[in-house]
């Protein structure tokens, strides 16, 4: 991965030196194991901050919304799909961007590692598909494929779908994965079981809105939960309000979600709210053959009418 870092720095430096961009958005090393901080560099001297490893799970497209500058942005597969969505939704212009594509081999799940580690984690390093976790007691080694984020392990778009620079040769796409196995499990339940399942899933929610705010799709000037005239949803911890928030947040992502996993990654209490967005992704794929963010030329599923759209809802 360190070659990725070198190549990102080289590219960023060149783009800044040649005044192709005013700023480059990427990641810098975090202060915690398995954490990196999204950052912006504005001069060639600063590019040595930039790094790349398997802890760059935050979706950088989130930092583009309504920006006016010429921007270089480091983008893995899912980030690039959200950049496409941003372009389609007029949140940024293609001409403003120099997309530095990063073929991605998946991000590691800090919670999985924390749960598997024996004691507090002091450092995490990786090499050749192995993740080495150092705790006060021991050094443990995991296969990276076993500790990937849930969305990365079923990802079928690891390579950027749009880019101006590529920092490495494309990686092979995964073909033998079933992205919707977890959704199918829920579909097999009775309504009562499903209701109880989500009751339990959402119970720890503290309504910090990290899922919403980490999501590049959530850019409304005022979110419906923050509206007060009229007030659509209560602001307390009532389960009906918490459920309404999660339901509508997910629904607003219908046909737009790339399953980048930023929401789940950001959640301080570890809720897998992707089980909601993925249901919609699955429906979009099955009903409209639609996957979000693959092309700037086509209109999103919910923004487009086709004569063969399913209409079995009509009585």
């Amino acid at each position, binding site marked *: 991965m360190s070659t990725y870092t070198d190549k990102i720095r080289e590219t960023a430096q060149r783009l800044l030196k040649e005044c192709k961009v005013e700023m480059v958005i990427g990641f810098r090393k975090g202060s915690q194991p398995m954490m990196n901080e999204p950052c912006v560099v504005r001069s060639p001297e600063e590019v040595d901050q930039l790094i790349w490893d398997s802890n760059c799970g935050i979706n950088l497209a989130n930092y583009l919304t309504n920006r006016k500058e010429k921007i270089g942005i480091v983008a893995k597969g899912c980030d690039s799909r959200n950049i496409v969505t941003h372009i389609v939704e007029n949140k940024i212009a293609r001409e403003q961007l120099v997309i530095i594509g990063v073929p991605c081999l998946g991000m590691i799940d800090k919670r999985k590692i924390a749960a598997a580690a024996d004691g507090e984690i002091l450092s995490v390093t990786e090499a050749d598909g192995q993740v080495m976790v150092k705790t006060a007691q021991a050094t443990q080694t995991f296969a990276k494929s076993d500790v990937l984020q849930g969305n990365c392990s079923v990802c079928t778009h690891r390579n950027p779908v749009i880019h101006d620079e590529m920092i490495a040769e494309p990686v092979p796409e995964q073909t033998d994965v079933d992205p919707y196995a977890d*959704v199918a499990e*829920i*579909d097999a339940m009775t*309504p*009562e*079981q*499903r*209701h*109880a*399942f*989500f*009751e339990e899933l959402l119970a720890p929610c503290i309504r910090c809105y990290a899922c919403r705010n980490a999501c590049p799709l959530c850019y409304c000037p005022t979110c419906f939960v923050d509206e007060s005239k009229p007030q659509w949803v*209560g602001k*307390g*911890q*009532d*389960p*009906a*309000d918490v*459920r*309404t928030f999660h*339901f509508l947040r*997910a*629904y607003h992502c*219908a046909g737009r979600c790339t399953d980048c996993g930023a929401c789940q990654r950001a959640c301080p209490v570890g809720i897998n709210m992707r089980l*909601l967005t993925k*249901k*919609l992704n699955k*429906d979009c794929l099955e009903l409209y053959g639609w996957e979000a963010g693959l092309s700037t030329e086509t209109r999103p599923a919910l923004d487009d009418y086709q004569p063969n759209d399913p*209409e079995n*809802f*009509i*009585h």
Partner: protein
Amino acid sequence: MKNLLEHMGMEPDRLHFSWISSAESTKFVAVVNQITAKVKALGPNQRFVKKAAKVA
């Protein structure tokens, strides 16, 4: 939307969508009758409903 509500545990017969032209009055009546029968069979809705704020 109906799919996601059902995914979260809403009963399939609770929410209905259809498309009826203003010229299809008999269809309108038939659909409304169908819906009322299905919803009545389910009884009052208990999900996504808040009768009083639950606070500490």
